[in-house]
């Protein structure tokens, strides 16, 4: 990932963070930051992109901590699992269950938001899993309503930039 790309990624995440903090009524926690971080990770599907996204998400968690860093833990795992083939299209083709590229971003962002909603409650809540699940749903639902369209638009932009040749994918070794 180039220096310019890194700077652009940091700036986008900062903007999303700013908007979330300034307008919490319109943008619940994670509704903007998580899709943008996922877009940064998926921009060129490289280890540097994953590193940048993971670090930014970890910084977001440090700034606004929850009971445990569920999203920073899951992002690298899922990003590596979903994206291991990288630019090597043959690797993707060989998979039995291939996830369409436009769905990757909403799916990853949705998983992270769910994890984050779960982590908003303290550990004690999880003594009763049903109550905890309800609570997580209550926390996550408003954010999910914003996250899905935002991540959808970002996924389309990613796709469009790829079609237009604006997105440079790092060559695999």
């Amino acid at each position: 990932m180039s220096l310019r790309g890194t700077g652009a990624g940091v700036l986008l995440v900062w903007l999303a963070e700013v908007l979330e903090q300034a307008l919490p009524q319109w943008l619940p926690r994670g509704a903007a930051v998580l899709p943008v971080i996922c877009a940064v990770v998926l921009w060129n599907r490289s280890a540097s992109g994953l590193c940048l996204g993971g670090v930014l998400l970890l910084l977001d968690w440090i700034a606004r901590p929850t009971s445990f860093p569920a999203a920073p833990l899951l992002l690298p795992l899922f990003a590596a699992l979903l994206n291991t083939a990288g630019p090597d299209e043959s690797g993707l083709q060989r998979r039995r269950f291939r996830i369409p590229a436009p769905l990757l971003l909403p799916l990853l962002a949705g998983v992270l938001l769910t994890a984050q909603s779960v982590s908003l409650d303290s550990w004690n809540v999880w003594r009763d899993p049903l109550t905890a699940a309800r609570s997580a749903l209550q926390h996550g639902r408003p954010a999910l309503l914003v996250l899905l369209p935002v991540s959808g638009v970002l996924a389309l932009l990613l796709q469009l930039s790829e079609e237009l040749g604006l997105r440079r994918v790092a060559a695999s070794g």
Partner: protein
Amino acid sequence: MHSNPERTRKWQVAAVLMVLACAAAGAEHLGALRSVRPLLLDICSPGRLVVLALAPFDSSGTRSPERLETASQGSAAGAAGGGSQSPSAARELLLRQLLIENARLRRDLQRERQRTDPWQPEAETEELAVRPAILDLRVIPARVLTRQDSLPDVLRELAIDAGRAQGLNRSELVVQGAGRVIDAGREQRVQAGDRVLDGLTVVGRIERSARWISLVQPVTAEGFRARVQLLRIAEGERHPGATGLLEGTGTAVCRLTGLGPTDAVAAGDEVLAAGIEGLTGPPLYFGRVVRADFLAGGTWDVEVAPAVQLDDLESVQVLRWEWLKQGVAP
């Protein structure tokens, strides 16, 4: 066997990130990240303030400055709770609190000056005025100057001296009679007959008013009369009762007269004002019936204990109203 170095690198990065997340969780648990958090939040502060300044309204409809204040207050609360607040926002909040405290102290000082120097012609009285429609209703705060039946000599001299200093007639300021003196007079549009309250409890009536002070007739004083209505509260429900005339007796209790032989009265009934010139206003309270005897002649002998004694009060409110010649259009 084909190995993809990029894939390996991704897994290595993922592993490092997960370790970092676990380390961050441990550090957070130990409180080691508290100093870092304000720094991270401060990085977003410029953008956050710009966004708040640009957005004219939020979803709740409050204007930007109010939201800025709310945001800074919320952030400061976060700083107090978990340290999730930038130092600049906390400083801003502190500055606002100091400004508010300063304004409050200034107001208290002004009020205290009015109390210690009631003869100041420019002293403003903080009276509460209800928006006039057909009735001009005002509540004028006043301080009880004497709690004895006569004006003390010191205050009498003070009043007379102040009157001379203001170029007033001697006779206008000298108030005599059995009652208490308060520091509100005709200057504050206090007139004879106005009710003197402690909250919503009637403690007396203005007997005479001078320019700066007035004489209050307590509800227990001889000559005090007021139309009242009984109210019985039983099982949480209010039952309005008979109307009568409350009269001061010169003792600690008042007498209730004007009751018919068929009226129902019992000890414990509440005594309220029967209304302001026939209009049902706020339920002004007098006290409670402490004794109700039905005499052989078919009349009632009812004693009412006032809820508040004027002698116990340091400040009162004067309720005054006057009919407007023509109603004010809304």
